[in-house]
């Protein structure tokens, strides 16, 4: 964009936001240049701190008018670079757009703005013994808007699904500034599931302004078990045994020895430090149902050869056990100057194979890998430890990470269970999906956002249109189907 037009854009932007909420200097925008994926850093032209949905819409429209790419940001906790700024673009910070708009306990629904913090939803609904099920580990910090963009998961996905399964409707602004309503306030839908299509689209389809979420009744009772194993495969096998028994736990998590070590140093949850692996299983439901399930679980765990089994005796103990698990990623910062966290999925029956392969790769690349994972749904989180100060180690770590993703593809799994593609896995999406599928996704994206302004450079490679003065018509344009007017 030529200098005059850019100046015009900036002037217009300054009319929408007072100085305190329009950040442009290097110092002001510096802390927005990264999110949870610290290896990447890019400088935006401006960061705007919005306080109303209208401001979001106005900003998007202005960006569209001038062809300036933009990205929305909640708390910047994305692990795949989802809120990484686009160089020369605008960051639309939504953390202040955080009001509760409507709360309907008798319907089991709540409507919030995108900056509303994930855990605050459950906090608010607790007064009616309701809660919001999707529980990513960053729950105390991350925002619903971010959860929507990436279809965030958490430990309780096995039984209750991911964010998409709990979003009933939204009001969104499309990349050209058009505001549309998707879905509604009901658990059911008539017509295409556009809400489901928007959730997980990583910001490529625009920005959510209002989100209607489903609330569930709080489980009456939890039964939380921590079982310790002297080999990691035994822990994996235990999961298979639980599944075979017909039980459907709320969560099943495994952590290996390195992860336990890190977590204990941070949280002191009392995890057994010598265990090769621990399995966390949680039953939940009505009192009588859980009481009937406990003997079944005990039998299975008994047969699984755990050398130690602990049961949480009260809510405090339960929260402590979970804290140990949920802080694991960040705690790994104590073991190593740097790390890459991966997010692959393999069929659950191939978990043991996958762990063996990861161990093999770890030896091959001579880098330690800590493993934390949602064993119930085969979602692995290998944490590849490295020291960026040592020449070449970052590259080695990335290679190892790549090998793990290729393994997931080979096993018929997925390259991401919940962190999304962002910038991190752009190269791997075309390995998981074929040429036709990639083209279809790009076509859909271009149809909704011909100028590729919404979170440009994420998820799908940027095709013609990266620099806006290179005006090569896209095939859809040539067909007269879309136009860049």
């Amino acid at each position, binding site marked *: 964009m030529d200098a005059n037009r850019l100046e015009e854009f900036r002037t217009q932007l300054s009319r929408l936001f007072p100085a305190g909420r329009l*950040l442009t*200097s*290097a*110092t*002001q925008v*510096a*802390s*927005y*240049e*990264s*999110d*949870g994926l*610290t*290896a990447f850093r890019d400088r935006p032209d401006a960061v705007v*701190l919005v306080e109303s949905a209208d401001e979001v819409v106005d900003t998007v429209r202005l960006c569209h008018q001038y062809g300036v790419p933009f990205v929305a940001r909640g*708390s*910047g*906790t994305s692990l795949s670079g989802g809120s990484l700024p686009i160089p020369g673009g605008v960051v639309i*910070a939504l*953390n*202040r757009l955080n009001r509760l708009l409507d709360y309907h306990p008798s319907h089991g629904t709540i409507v919030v703005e995108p900056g509303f*913090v994930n855990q605050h939803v459950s906090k608010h609904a607790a007064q009616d013994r309701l809660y919001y099920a999707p529980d990513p580990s*960053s729950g*105390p*910090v*991350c925002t619903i808007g971010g959860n929507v963009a990436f279809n965030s998961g958490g430990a309780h996905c096995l039984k209750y699904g991911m964010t998409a399964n709990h979003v009933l409707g939204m009001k969104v602004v499309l990349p050209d500034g058009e505001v549309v309503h998707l879905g509604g306030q009901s658990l059911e839908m008539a017509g295409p599931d556009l809400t489901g299509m928007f959730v997980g689209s990583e910001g490529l389809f625009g920005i959510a302004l209002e989100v209607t979420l489903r609330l569930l009744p709080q489980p009456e009772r939890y039964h939380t078990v921590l079982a310790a194993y002297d080999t990691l495969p035994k822990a994996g096998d235990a999961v298979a045994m639980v599944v075979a028994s017909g039980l459907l736990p709320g969560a099943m998590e495994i952590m290996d020895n390195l992860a336990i070590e890190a977590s204990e*140093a*941070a*949280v002191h949850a009392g995890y057994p430090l010598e265990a090769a692996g621990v399995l966390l299983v949680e039953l939940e439901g009505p009192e009588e149902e859980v009481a009937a399930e406990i003997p079944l679980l005990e039998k299975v765990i008994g047969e699984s050869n755990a050398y130690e089994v602990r049961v949480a005796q009260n809510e405090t103990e339960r929260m402590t056990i979970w804290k140990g698990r949920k*802080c694991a*990623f*960040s*705690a*790994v*910062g*104590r073991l190593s*100057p*740097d*790390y890459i966290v991966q997010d692959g999925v393999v069929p659950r029956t191939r978990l043991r194979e996958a762990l063996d392969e990861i161990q093999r790769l770890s030896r091959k690349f001579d880098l330690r890998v800590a493993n934390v994972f949602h064993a119930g749904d085969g979602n692995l989180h290998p944490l590849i430890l490295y020291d*960026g*100060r040592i020449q070449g180690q970052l590259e080695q770590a990335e290679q190892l990470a790549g090998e793990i993703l290729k393994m997931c593809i080979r096993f018929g799994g997925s390259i991401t269970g919940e962190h999304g593609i962002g910038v991190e896995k752009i190269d791997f999406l075309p390995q998981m999906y074929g040429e036709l599928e990639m083209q279809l996704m790009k076509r859909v994206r271009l149809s909704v956002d011909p100028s590729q302004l919404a979170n440009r450079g994420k998820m799908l490679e940027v095709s013609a249109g990266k620099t806006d003065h290179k005006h090569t018509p896209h095939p859809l344009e040539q067909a007269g189907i879309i136009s860049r007017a």
Partner: protein
Amino acid sequence: MLHTIPVEQLGPRGTSMSEAVSSCVHCGFCLPDCPTYRVLGEEMDSPRGRIFLMKDALEEKLPLAEVLPYIDRCLGCVGCVTACPSGVEYGDLITSFRAWSNEQRRRTIASRVLRTLVLKSLPYPGRFRIGVKIGQFAKPFRRLLPSRLRAMLDLLPDTLPKPAPLPEFFPAIGKRRARVALLAGCAQQVLSPQINWATLRVLARNGVEVVIPRNQQCCGALAAHTGAMSQAVTHARHNLGVFPSDVDAIITNAAGCGSGMREYGLWFQGQAEEVAAKEMADRVQDISEFLVQLGTIDAPPLSAPMKVAYHEACHLVHAQGVSDQPKKLLNSIPNLELVYVPEGQICCGSAGAYNIEQPSIAHQLGTEKAQSILATGAVAVAAGNIGCMTQIAVHLKLLGHQLPVYHTVELLDRSYSSLE
């Protein structure tokens, strides 16, 4: 986080700063517990953002002058350290950074005058007393004064208690179970001398004899946390010389002092006194910590039931990890119903001299804290720090409520007063 901080050029501080930056994984778990992020809602005023900015400033990627306003706004409450799963020693980072940047920054004349006023009066009880009297005199003219001076005046009480100089020695009652030294504090001696006296009596009742070194000075925390490192070190060095080593513990009853003294090892990094400083720091305990460890006598009931809200001073809970002990002590007093303040992990806005340096943010935090306290329905407040006590009392008053604010040890003293 990867960084290119020129550690070798920064001396011993360089190591603590770079280690803190290295261990940060940018996860953002610190954001919800950061008072300034809650009030200001922007990344630069969060621990995660400040770490990033400090890193960039040390790497000379950003001009120090532009970074400093965000660093200045940090309360130093280290609530982020409690929340951080990665073990980032943010307290060490910010103290070191403030010391480093102090040597290089240019302050405005107004700022320098204010700092001098605070640093040259507060740590010296004699001068402070005079200063308060002048301040009280100036109160009617507050509107004519610049906002920061006004903020200072607003914190002053209407009347000053009479001076109550402390003895050099206070004996145990009954069998002697321990021997300690007391840091008397500075502002505390002027504003609320009764806290120290209550401390002495409570210790005596529990069989502890107390040595109060006559020539002790301010612990230096105030100076250190605002970057005036050389003044801090001067005070600390002096105290290293006057505090005895034949004591079971060095007792502090102001959270700010306790957290400061526990940093002595950091302040003397790379210097001759480093070992002695660390040894002294290791012997420092908050009064509540010490009493619970020792085991206290049974507390008689208060003369009438009282519902008390316990406020967690950030320099006690976050900086020193002392949280259970004061609650245990208060819970042990019959007729005292203890309630906890919602969002207790968030600072009240006092944080050293924060309410003077950043009056607007401090005011917002103080108001929110006062509202949280009022929501508990308590009729009185207990806390372990003179700064918090002042801040809370002022803000309760502004909301139209004049609840009495006590030091934890004062309530114990009151309970013991019915013993012969």
